[in-house]
């Protein structure tokens, strides 16, 4: 059943891609190596970590909700997978990735319980969930960096290459493709956007809105967990606060990609552009030896500017 609606090509989706291109071209004037294959393929690999997480975040934001539990779902998944793989037991090592993803799905469902059944704003509920996960992991590790290591498979998907293309990037594109198919081939994408605009009318159209919300938060949880598995594979360990630098850039990537923070309009393709832009900007800023503090300020400003543009566009419309 194809339910896709043909729309005139929306320029908003092209903006982050164009901005990325400009960033590369301008950057290459000062640092010619930016046009090199090595640099670009390394950027694709780094972008994939953020990209996988941002796919899930896009789905939740389309609903008009937000998932602030990203950092510690990511951290928790990294902890679980490296702990299991660190035992050296072949069965447990095999279970490392599925267990981590299952953990993400579980937390996603718990997020949905708060939002759907208890009717607590997602911003508050998922933030509280993040805090609970943080506390739990400190209790478990005693506040030290946990022992453990990545399994071979984890290292391969995070750092491996297939025909020169980073495996992590292939995985990200795979996730994006599967989600895009689910969104467009079933009613799921339509439900997400309809709920984002008007949940009541969608429910009264005979849509099981609770199931849609549960599925969306679960998908977001799995995506964050997959991000954690990739990062743990990349670093060959889990460490405290490894997810913290990912929350703001995730939201920034979704918003830069043209998805409305209020829900309803937007999509995965724009977010992919947003992820490229954020990753390259981060890289350019660090090559230019701009401090972490200024990078944070830059991301905050970019989000504000994008929100401002969205607001102005809504007023015009």
């Amino acid at each position, binding site marked *: *059943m*194809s*339910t896709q*609606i*043909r*729309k005139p090509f929306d320029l908003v989706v092209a903006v982050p891609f164009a901005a990325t291109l400009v960033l590369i071209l301008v950057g290459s004037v000062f640092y010619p190596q930016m046009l090199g294959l090595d640099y670009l393929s390394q950027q694709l690999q780094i972008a994939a970590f953020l990209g996988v997480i941002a796919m899930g975040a896009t789905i939740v934001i389309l609903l008009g909700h937000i998932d602030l539990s990203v950092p510690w779902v990511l951290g928790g998944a990294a902890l679980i997978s490296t702990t299991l793989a660190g035992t050296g037991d072949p069965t447990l090592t095999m279970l490392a990735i599925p267990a981590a993803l299952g953990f993400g799905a579980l937390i996603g469902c718990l997020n949905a319980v708060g939002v759907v059944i208890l009717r607590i704003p997602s911003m508050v509920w998922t933030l509280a969930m993040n805090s609970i996960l943080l506390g739990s992991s400190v209790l478990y590790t005693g506040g030290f960096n946990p022992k453990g290591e990545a399994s071979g498979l984890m290292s391969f998907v995070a750092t491996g290459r297939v025909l020169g293309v980073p495996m992590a990037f292939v995985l990200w594109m795979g996730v994006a493709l599967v989600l895009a198919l689910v969104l467009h081939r079933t*009613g799921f994408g*339509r*439900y997400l*956007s*309809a709920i984002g*605009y*008007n949940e*009541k*009318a*969608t*429910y*009264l*159209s*005979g*849509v*099981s809105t609770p199931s849609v919300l549960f599925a969306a938060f679960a998908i977001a949880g799995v995506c964050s967990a997959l991000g954690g598995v990739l990062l743990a594979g990349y670093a060959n360990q889990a460490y405290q606060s490894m997810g913290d630098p990912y929350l703001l850039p995730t939201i920034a990537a979704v918003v830069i990609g043209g998805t409305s923070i209020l829900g*309803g*309009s937007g999509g995965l393709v724009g977010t992919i552009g947003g992820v490229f832009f954020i990753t390259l900007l981060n890289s350019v800023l660090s090559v230019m030896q701009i401090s972490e503090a200024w990078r944070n300020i830059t991301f905050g400003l970019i989000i504000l500017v994008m929100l401002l543009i969205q607001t102005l566009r809504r007023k015009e*419309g």
Partner: protein
Amino acid sequence: MTPNDPPIVRLKGVTKRYGATCALNDVDFACHPGEIHAVLGENGAGKSTLMKIISGVIPPTEGAIYLDGTETTLASPRDAVARGLVCMFQELSLVPDLSVRENLLLGAPGSGLGRLPKTAIARAQQVLAQIDGRHISMRARVADLSLAERQQVEIAKALARNPRLLILDEATSALNASVVDKVFDLIRAESARGVGVLFISHRFHEIEALADKISVFRNGSHVDTFANGAHDYSAIIGKMVGQRIDDLFPPKSPADPDAETVLQLEGFGWGEALQDVNITLRKGSIVGLGGLDGQGQAHVLHGLFGVLKNTSGRIVLEGRDLALSSPKQAKQPDIGIALLPEDRKTEALVLQQSIRANMQLAALGTDGVRASDPALYQPYLDALELKYATLDQPVGQLSGGNQQKVALTKWLALKPRCLLLADPTRGIDVKTKTQIYGLLRQLADAGTAILLLSTDYEEFIHLCDETHIFYDGRVVRHLQGDEVTANNILSAALNMPATEMGAEVAHA
């Protein structure tokens, strides 16, 4: 008061567009000092847009506004009030959580940064006293007032601002006749002092009693302006509608009391709010649900659509007991119940999405229906003559009547066995009404069982085959055939005993 005075306000070539929709089209309009000017038109004719432009709420897309002969731009409602253009809007503009006194002072001339002029209060109290509002305490919270009392406060608030032009948009819709008379006396007194009055009302006798001049709008254009009394009712309606509508309602088919039962409610209830309701819905009949607002009739529709939890009693559909838990379940073809909700904008449609997306939303997830098939929708779009640019147009750009057509089409596409309608013609223009009535009768004749909640008793008399009147969560009267009269409906709605005469006629 001579025609040579420059008009208080004059619009020249004013056009207002919202996206592709043109709400006002090249309108010339003027209101002179001392003139009571009635503005008539169907919903969507552009009256409210006109008033919003004159009171500074929205700027015109094209054209000019002249105040006392000088071209002016109205920057904001505050700017308009400062220039003496005071509007009392249809949507009441009082802040519910503030007291009457605080509301009267909000935005009063000369107020600001904590300075609240006391003179406004005195004037407002005087006005309230004149229109039977003496009992309204200045300290009462607006939220605790009745709709009529709020309208009285609105009127007092507007007059306390010393308007030069007073705009009344359906200002008296909730007031009873004796209060309306007093409001009119007040308006006449204001007009004698040289204040211009713009007056929107749907009650013809009020316009006849009050207006000096009448302007008719249709589809965003100014059709005609003439002196009160120059045309009779039917000529005025002809101008409003653009064509004469002889029969608002389609002819009724003779009701068949032995027709197959589609749906039966037995002792149906929901907590305290709805108790012991028994309704039988037969193939081909339209059954009305009436009563004052909020007497439980809406719960019947919601209960039948699976929205309510923990209902009591039985719902029997074609011989089998149903336990409904969600709208998703209710819409499946093995049950086939559809609900057109009461509020188009928040419950029936996703305004930001396209016509197509809205129509498909109910069909998506219904077993055995291919939502993307345009053939599902086209017959109903044709029957209802939906006016649209493309199906990709956001529904929010359509007029109220056309929005309702989309909402109806969305459900009719599923070919429901049982169609539940919550006041489907509220706030809709006459032409769309006739189209909806005609379609409902056709559907009934084709075998759809229809349950119609309405606030317009004409619909019970002319469209429904039988009617249940609700009071305090129960059915207090079941009216059929000749019993369905305006008198019986109203007395039942107020839970008064049937009038002797009505009863006699019914049993004669």
